[in-house]
């Protein structure tokens, strides 16, 4: 238990250091973008958050697969926690993306930004995941249903991405373009630090949340045993 606690503390410390360093570097040190100026710096927050959200969903699906494979009930909680974190990072992606759209194009929402559209679809999909969980009694059946749905999610991500690209041809002509940033070496370094910071933040939140939920379950068992 103490080993696990140590790891949680270490992760939290790493996440805080990396976050502060990443943000400071992104705001103060990274070179100014030639086209978009200062506002481009939100890129160092937005993109790492989005990539971390994908990582959460993938981690949740991996745990879901483990659950179906081994039937170990603990994977259910792990998968659920990862998806839960994914939704939080997903909402942050939508918010930061929306702010970026407002700054660079003057609108809060644009369907021509692929990543934003994809996250809207994923947000709806994973909200239904929560609805599904809330309307089934906890137990092996709920674990199975959630796991199957989480697996569908991770397959839906690339398929939806492809669909959104295909839809651009007839839904909206692309008015705004934001080419993949031509990152210089120092920009890329800052980007990597920010990505590492977000991943560490996810790992830290995930470990904490999981420990809390396990403690909760243990407490409930003890209380029941006392009755």
């Amino acid at each position, binding site marked *: 238990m103490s080993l696990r606690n140590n790891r949680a503390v270490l992760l939290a410390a790493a996440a805080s250091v990396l976050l502060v360093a990443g943000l400071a570097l992104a705001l103060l040190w990274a070179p100014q973008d030639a086209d978009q100026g200062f506002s481009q710096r939100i890129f160092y927050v937005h993109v790492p958050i989005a990539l971390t959200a994908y990582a959460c969903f993938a981690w949740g699906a991996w745990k879901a697969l483990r659950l179906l494979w081994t039937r170990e009930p603990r994977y259910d909680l792990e998968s659920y926690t990862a998806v839960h974190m994914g939704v939080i990072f997903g909402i942050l992606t939508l918010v930061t993306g929306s702010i970026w759209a407002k700054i660079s194009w003057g609108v809060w929402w644009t369907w021509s930004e692929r990543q934003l559209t994809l996250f809207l679809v994923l947000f709806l999909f994973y*909200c*239904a995941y929560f*609805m*599904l969980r809330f*309307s089934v009694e906890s137990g092996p059946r709920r674990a199975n249903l959630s796991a199957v749905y989480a697996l569908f999610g991770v*397959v839906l991500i690339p*398929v939806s991405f492809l669909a959104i690209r*295909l839809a651009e041809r007839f839904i909206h002509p692309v008015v705004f373009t934001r080419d993949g940033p031509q990152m210089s070496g120092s920009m890329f370094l800052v980007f990597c630090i920010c990505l590492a910071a977000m991943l560490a933040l996810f790992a830290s939140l995930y470990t904490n949340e999981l420990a809390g939920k396990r403690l909760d379950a243990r407490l409930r068992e003890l209380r029941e045993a006392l009755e």
Partner: protein
Amino acid sequence: MTYFADVAALARKDLLLELRSRDTLPAMLLFVISALVVFHFSLPSEASATASTGLLWIAILFTALLGLGRAFAAEREQRVLDGLVLAPCDRSAIWLAKAIGVLAFLGIAELVALPAYALFFEPVGWELVAAIVLADLGLAAVGTLLAAMAAASRARELLLPLLFLPLVIPVVVGGVGASVVDDPARYLGFLALYDLIFAILSWASFEYVVAE
């Protein structure tokens, strides 16, 4: 081979049930025609021709949803699904048979809906027909699995559209794309890819949805 015998026995039973009770199919037919009529009134006259194509796809989606909501109605009564799950046949046979039934009902509804669409709105081209056939496969495959999921939950009817719609957005993209662009091959290919991926996934995971 016994696998397909099981599927045939189960699918035949679904057909028999529908012939008996005549619940689902007439409702789907009436719904799709009503939807098209409503769409006529919701399209301003200066709306482009492609707008009506989009609405046709919405009508198909919701007709499928209507059918899927009823797909496991007979099994939900008196836990018949448990009886089927205990039989020694592969559980995916239950999924396949049910998906075939859903596909058949959806196909019949579209056999009525497409001429009506041609009459009310626009002529129907081969691209549209091909896209609908491919889309139906995906809708039936994914929809049947999700219907079984929703049937296992407390919220049931409420839950199915929430589970279903985000997952079939790619089907709408493929379907609308194939019917409005000049070279539909890419979109038809995308629909076929979707069918393949999600049919395999649904086939493999159905067992976990109906059994603990």
